[in-house]
C-alpha cells in the first residue's frame, strides 16, 4: 500500500470526527421527557400518542388544506367532532404558553420549527424583544 501511514491516519481522523457526537455527550445524563403544562381540556384533536409523534405532519396538512384548498374544518378521529383548522385559534386556545409547552420538547430535542417566525403566540414568546 502506497502512503499506508497517511491513509490510516486519515481514516482514523475521519472516524473520530464522524463519531464526535458520541464522544461529546459521554457522561451527560440520559434524555428525559420534559414536563409540559397540561391544559384543562381532556381531549386534544387526536390521541396524545398521535399528537406527540405526528403533530408536525398534522399541522403541515392543516396548513395546506386551509391556505391552499380552502378547507376550514377537520374531523377528529378521536371524538368525531369537527374542529376548526387554525394554529392560533384552535391549538393555542388550549396551549397558550409556548415556553411551557411547545418549546419544552423542541428545545431539548434541538429543533426550531419556523411557525413562530410569523404566527403570534399569546404568551411565552421566547423571541420577545
Amino acid at each position, binding site marked *: 500500500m502506497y502512503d499506508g501511514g497517511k491513509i490510516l491516519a486519515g481514516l482514523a481522523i475521519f472516524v473520530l470526527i464522524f463519531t464526535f457526537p458520541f464522544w461529546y455527550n459521554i457522561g451527560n445524563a440520559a434524555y428525559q421527557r420534559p414536563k409540559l403544562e397540561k391544559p384543562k381540556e381532556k381531549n386534544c384533536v387526536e390521541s396524545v400518542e398521535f399528537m406527540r409523534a405526528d403533530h408536525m405532519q398534522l399541522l403541515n396538512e392543516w396548513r395546506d388544506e386551509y*391556505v391552499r384548498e380552502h378547507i376550514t374544518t377537520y374531523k377528529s378521529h378521536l371524538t368525531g367532532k369537527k374542529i376548526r383548522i387554525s394554529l392560533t385559534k384552535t391549538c393555542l386556545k388550549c396551549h397558550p404558553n409556548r415556553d411551557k409547552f411547545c418549546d419544552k420538547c423542541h428545545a431539548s430535542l434541538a429543533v426550531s420549527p419556523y411557525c413562530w417566525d*410569523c404566527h*403570534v403566540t399569546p404568551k411565552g414568546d421566547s423571541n420577545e424583544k
Partner: protein
Amino acid sequence: MKSNRRQFLATLGITALGWSLFPNLLKAAEATSGHSLKGKRWAMVIDTKKLTVEIMEKCIRACNKAHNIPHIPDKKEVKWIWIETFHHLFPGQMGDKTHVSEYPEKKSLCLCNHCENPPCVRVCPTKATFQREDGIVMMDFHRCIGCRYCMAACPFGSRSFNFYDPRKFLKEENPNFPTRTKGVVEKCLFCYERIDEGKKPYCVEAAEGAIYFGDLNDPHSEVRKVLAERYAITRKPELGTFPCVYYLI
C-alpha cells in the same frame, strides 16, 4: 431537392407537432385564470367621488392594524392598501394635465386588483401565489422562496417584499393574524379570513359606504347594481389581466 416518403413523413410529423404545440402555448397564458361563471367571484368597487382623504386613511389604518403591516420608513416598505394619485393609478390616461380639470392629482386607493388572469400567478415557480376558486389571488407564505418574480410581473405595483424582518417595525402584533417573516413577498389578500367568516373586508367596513364589495357573478349583488348604474374603469385594461377592483368616476 429529392422528395421521398421518409421526408414527407418527417415533415408531416413536425407539422403535427407544431399544430399541437401552438394551441397549448395559447392555453398556457390562460392556464392560471379561474374564468368560471359558477360560484363566487369577489370584486370591489371604489367610489372615487365619495372617498375623502380621512376615509382613505381610516381604511388603511384598519387594514394595517388587522394584518400586522409593518411601518417601514424607506422604499423597502410594505403596503397592502395605500393612497395614490390618479396620475399614478392610471398612467397614460391622465396625460393632458393643462386642460382636464384636477383629476390627475386627485387621490384614490390603490391595492391588489385580484386579476381574473393574474400574471403573478403565472410566473410564480412554486405556486406560492395562486388563485382561489372565488378569484382571490392568495399567498402561501410558507412556500414563498422570495425570488420576487411576481413583483416584476405585477403591472400594478401591488406587491411588497420583506427586505427587513417585519416584526422590528411593528408596534403591536395582532395575534389573530400571522405576521410575515423576512424574505417573502406579500400583498392584499382581499381579507380572505373575513370572507370565510361571512364578513366584508376591513377597508370596506371602514369606508362608510364609499367602497362596495360583493359577488360579481351574482346579477343581484350590490357591486353588479352599482356597476350597471355608473361609469367605472379598471387599471390598465389593455394588458388583459381583468382587474376585479373597479373605480367609479
